[in-house]
């Protein structure tokens, strides 16, 4: 009895060759390698997103329970209120969020591009030191960095206090108070490395003989930048811009610290609605505008560059 069961067990065991042959199937190997990641994506990305889309089309009743009956009420509520459309809180908040994210992205690009170019051209020890110095602040917690900007800005912040101390101004400058400027500075600082590293990866792969050829053929520096360098580094520019624009659009901590409540970005608007009223339907509908705009941004990006190019190599 014991012998026969051992034999059955042994029969069930696969030899090494059989295991290799089993994995040799393209479908099975794909399932084993990509399967876990796919499950992860479905559980943590697709399922919550589907739930959010669903909730944006249902209501929450007076007992704060979701009523699973389709409605467009949440989308109507986003634009409810008196006066012209552009004066509605949601519209203003959305437009402001786009504007802040766009300016942040442009600033990151403008600031990071020359540095990335220098790093790509110089390389070696200089590169390592500069990259280390740029990344050093990012080893600290994001909240700490946001709080450090909080101390820099404000009527009595470090910037205004310094200007006053040296007699450069007679009273604190409003531009260094909390608000949109402070938020943009904070976000630019927060997301600068993403742009820098994306641009560096792209510029590092650039064939600089083309730049030299352009100059030899009489193109000015500006023309070389416009007609040679920028087109060839477009994938890095696009990937860096996406990495900066997307999180800036939904920023929450930075505006909370550096806006001092006088600026209402879309993330804060959604959080306040859900916190006070448990308006998850309204919050989901508002979030859809962010999700859809990001999908559009990616679609536009992929129209010009492939996903391999977005890696900057």
């Amino acid at each position, binding site marked *: 009895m014991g012998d026969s069961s051992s034999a059955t067990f042994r029969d069930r065991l696969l030899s090494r060759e059989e295991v290799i042959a089993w994995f040799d199937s393209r479908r099975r190997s794909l399932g084993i390698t990509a399967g876990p990641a796919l499950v992860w994506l479905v559980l943590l990305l697709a399922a919550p997103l589907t739930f959010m889309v669903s909730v944006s089309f249902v209501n929450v009743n007076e007992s*704060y329970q979701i009523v699973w009956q389709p409605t467009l009420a949440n989308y109507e509520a986003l634009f409810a*209120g008196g006066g012209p459309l552009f004066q509605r809180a*949601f519209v203003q908040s959305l437009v402001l969020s786009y504007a802040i994210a766009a300016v942040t992205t442009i600033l990151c690009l403008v600031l990071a591009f020359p540095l990335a170019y220098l790093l790509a051209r110089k390389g070696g020890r200089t590169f390592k030191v500069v990259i280390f110095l740029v990344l050093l602040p990012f080893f600290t917690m994001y909240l700490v960095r946001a709080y450090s900007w909080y101390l820099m800005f404000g*009527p009595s912040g470090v910037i205004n206090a310094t200007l006053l101390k040296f007699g450069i101004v007679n009273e604190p400058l409003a531009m260094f108070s909390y608000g949109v400027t402070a938020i943009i500075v904070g976000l630019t600082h927060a997301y600068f490395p993403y742009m820098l590293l994306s641009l560096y990866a792209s510029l590092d792969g650039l064939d600089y003989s083309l730049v030299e050829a352009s100059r030899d053929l009489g193109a000015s520096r500006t023309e070389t930048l416009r007609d040679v360098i920028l087109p060839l580094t477009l994938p890095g520019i696009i990937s860096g811009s996406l990495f900066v624009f997307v999180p800036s659009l939904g920023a929450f901590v930075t505006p909370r610290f550096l806006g001092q*409540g006088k*600026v209402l970005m879309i993330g804060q608007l959604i959080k*306040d609605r859900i916190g006070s009223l*448990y308006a998850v339907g309204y919050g989901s509908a508002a979030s859809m505008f962010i999700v859809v705009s990001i999908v559009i941004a990616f679609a536009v990006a992929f129209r010009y560059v492939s996903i391999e190019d977005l890696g900057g190599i």
Partner: protein
Amino acid sequence: MSGNPSDSPRTKSHQSRRAFLAATGAAGLTAAAGCIGGGGSTPTINILTWEEYANEDIKSRIEEEVGVTLEITKSTSSSNMFSSWNAGQYQQYDIAIPNNNYVPKMMDTEKDGEPMIAPVDEEAVSNFDAMYDVFQGFADSQFTANGNRYGVPIRFGWYGYSYDSRSVPDHEDSYKALFDENYVDADLSGKIVMYDNHFKAMSAAALYLGHGDAFEGSRVTLSQDQIDEVKQTLIDQKPNLQGYIAADPTYIKSLKQGNFVIGQSGRNEIVEMWSNDNDWPSMATPKEGSLAWFESAVVSSASENKTKSWEVINEYISAKNGATLAKTGFSPSVNPNTQEQLTDEQNEMYGAVDPSRLEQMIPFKAVENEDAWITAWEEVKSA
């Protein structure tokens, strides 16, 4: 020896493996029995509340007195407590202690057709009768439905405004100091702060505008016209603001840094500054009325230890623990017997409150048409 099969290394290995498995199994079963049965083990009460409630002295005293282990999660806002419980955490926590205006919302909340919070176990909360009458009355008027009470007040405070007396001259206490540029003989432009909270900021504006009667019922009832008037007042005020302050600790830091000189505030922030030898902040109690908050404990209907939970809450309003809580948060307990545990100076600052003063205050209340309030507040913030 080698001829005895039972002494072979292989058999020894089998024996030790069996012994190990048996021992592990027994240990596992014992542990499982402990988990499942729970008999004789100390129950754990999970609490979602403010930082001061996690004071080690209070915690250890309550654990010893009630025979429980307290797991306290700190929260920084009542709205977070409300939304997280709504999102399902009422199953994870036994107790939450939000501001009183969130208790009616929690009473309204149903989960699977049942109320989210449980009625008070009156026998377990034996210190209830020791409370100031006014708080017993608030509990009856705000937290009672269908003959059941659902919340127990713990500690309280009130909002007015405070100012740096070195920069702002003395004046009659009135919200005009925040909204009327000519009321105080000082340039306050860009040096005012308000709370970053629709209820607190809009209520102050409503009281400034003379809409005090809207606060008289069980809920605050501003009409749409009044809400629009409040909204416009706050929009007009905005250019003079340094900002909207989100949390109480931020207020103290920012006032000390000189970022503003006058702002809507709770009395406890100023008492904390007085306690730290800062004598220059002044607290104003506006003649139009002060808004009084009182934190109130609720117990989840999903709690498996409801009676123990109410016993824990009862301990938070005992004379000794209430006094420690008052010292920790610079806010008085709802139990006047706590005064016996405090020094004269402590009583003067936060321990003893004249009951007649409490009668004049406007308690936080749930809002009748909160959707309209939020919409107006968003328009103020984005203006």
